[in-house]
């Protein structure tokens, strides 16, 4: 048997150019090379890539000292955490109700999931029309007030992501062993006791996945942010520079790259690396967690 296995393996290896070649080539173009070049450029001062000059940690110093970047970090963190809580609470509630065998649950599920398929730019447009339709009656606009901008984005994110998380929770809830629920019932546990003592502990894996997902989604949010408020309103600093009050990290990096002038592209790339470390940290924590859970099972 072992010999067949080895002969198959060596036969397969002869075809490595076909099986691996295209993906490896594209992967180098689309990820590996840009990634390492990006790391390198974050230590450089450059207008064009060809005249990049190493300047050590200058860019990182400037990036961290940039108050608009600091602001966008805290704004992003706040958005991510608030949306995480709201999305997951709402999604869990909906999923819980939908698994109670009620009439029309398929239809409800279909409707709740639908917004997830609409792209971020279009979502931003739709909601900016709606918020302005409402706020116009009060002589204001989502572009004039940071608080409206913040909650507007949260509502948009909930609308988009509740359905998605709901699907994962439904899968988790359906996997809760029926006999455990029966046993709780026989023991005379109330609905609430069953929910907190039996159901929730059993869907903990789904909860963790959803929390990680909504957290990284929140941190990486770009399209919706761009289309809904684009960072408006700004605080005008005494030197004429601005802090864009509803600008999240991804948009801040984008603006540093493409509207702040070619002189600060190195700083933008340094911001991007810091952003990468943040997001990758969250992602790796999630992977590590899922791994550990798989081992435990």
């Amino acid at each position, binding site marked *: 048997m072992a010999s067949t296995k080895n002969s198959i393996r060596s036969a397969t290896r002869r075809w490595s150019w076909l099986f691996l070649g295209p993906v490896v080539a594209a992967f180098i173009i689309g990820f590996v090379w840009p990634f390492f070049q990006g790391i390198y450029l974050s230590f450089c001062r450059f207008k064009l890539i060809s005249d990049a000059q190493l300047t050590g940690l200058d860019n990182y110093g400037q990036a961290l000292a940039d108050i608009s970047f600091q602001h966008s970090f805290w704004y992003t963190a706040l958005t991510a955490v608030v949306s995480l809580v709201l999305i997951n609470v709402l999604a869990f509630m909906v999923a819980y109700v939908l698994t109670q065998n009620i009439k029309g649950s398929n239809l409800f599920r279909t409707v709740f999931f639908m917004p997830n398929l609409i792209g971020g730019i279009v979502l931003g447009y739709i909601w900016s029309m709606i918020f302005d339709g409402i706020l116009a009656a009060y*002589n204001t606009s989502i572009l*004039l007030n940071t608080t409206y901008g913040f909650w507007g984005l949260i509502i948009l994110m909930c609308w988009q992501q509740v359905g998605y998380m709901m699907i994962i929770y439904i899968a988790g809830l359906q996997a809760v062993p029926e006999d455990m629920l029966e046993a709780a019932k026989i023991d005379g546990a109330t609905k609430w006791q069953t929910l907190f003592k039996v159901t929730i502990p059993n869907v903990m894996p789904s909860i963790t996945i959803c929390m990680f997902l909504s957290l990284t989604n929140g941190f990486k949010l770009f399209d919706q942010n761009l289309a809904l408020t684009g960072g*408006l309103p700004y605080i005008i*600093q005494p030197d*004429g520079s601005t802090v864009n009050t509803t600008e999240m990290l991804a948009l801040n990096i984008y603006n540093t790259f493409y*509207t702040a002038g070619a*002189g600060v592209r190195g700083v933008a790339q340094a911001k991007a690396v810091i952003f990468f470390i943040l997001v990758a940290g969250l992602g790796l924590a999630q992977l590590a967690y899922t791994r550990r859970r798989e081992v435990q099972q």
Partner: protein
Amino acid sequence: MSTNLSRRAFLGTTGLMAATLAACNNGGEGGGEGGGSSAAAGSVYWLNFKPELDETLQALAGTYTESTGVPVKVVTAASGTYNQTLIAEMDKSEAPTLFVIGNAAGVKEWGDHALDLKGSAIESELSTDAYNLYDEAGKLVSMGYCYECYGIVANTDLIEKAGHSVDDIKDFASLKTVVEDIHARAAELGFDAFVATDMDDSSNWRVTGHLANLEYYYEARDAGGWTECPAELKGTYMENYKNLYDLMINNSIVEPTALATGGHDPANQFTSGQAAFFLTGSWDYTGISAAQPNVKMLPYYCGVAGEEKAGLNCGTENCWAVNANASEENQKATMDFMVWLVSDPDASAKLVEQLGIMPYKNSAPSTNGFLNDAASYTDMGCYVLDWVTTYQPNVDQYRAALVSALNAYNADQSDANWEKVRTAFVDGWATQYKAANA
């Protein structure tokens, strides 16, 4: 300085000589057109940067070659790629003989490659030198072949209906009187003074780009004119910017608080006769005149001393430069072709149809009312407000900050909020200049 002068003199002479030679040649051939001999005398290669002009130019090139035998090649760079195409083409042995240097940055980069057009036959065709670009030594690097203008478009019919005359508007005070009177009686008249000054991306350039030009222009004039982007602004004329801005937002169909997200379609408000005043430019003439035949473009009257003599904001980035490194025959052929374009009745009519107006004595008259307004202000001896908005550093970010500050001001017109507008306008310039030139 002396070397510069002598070089200018020298180039000037060659230019003249070329013109003389051209005259001789024509005489010598006795009007015998279309001969093979003139084809050997040179050829034209025009690197065009306006894609929408391509079709007309190809047709004109064909006509010219047919009647004179001089080969004319027109290559149009794809939209947004003119600069890189120019870099690539100028290195080739068959480089363009005619190309575009449209602004001060272009003069800096390409001025050395341009022939001094001073004293040339084509220069003598010009009706104004307002659209010429010179380098620091005073060389005539390029000359405009068309221009556009912007200002305050006024609906003369509506103004008359309100019991005023557009001819009475001669400065800011008289403009203000008319505007405020119309706005006060808007309900009775059935129309208002200004359209909505929308602040969304589709419209905010009217105030962050166009209207801002008045501040830059007067400041530049005080400084003796700008030849490159200044590192900072003084903000001397912010009051004047505010005058006109306040007049627009407070005498409009739409409340200032509703302007932030836009969507009021100001162009439609104007063409449908809901308002009498609208900030726009000559490119809107066809659409506007189809709906409102009696319109006039007024200068930015904003309370500056001597503004009775103000004209419209005129400018262009369409300026011809002749390649200094081309062979003499090709330079001559190119300049003959240029003269033909601006003086031949058919050719210039076709170009004017596309370009709006050409600042040359013998070119076809313009059918664009706004450009004719611009020309008649110039004829009356008024000064042109040059386009200096084009110097805005890091334009997207600079304007975005200004929009945000103006939004806050629209919602609450306090002095503190106007200070923020001033900060974005004046200090923002210096900050963005530093960022752009870091």
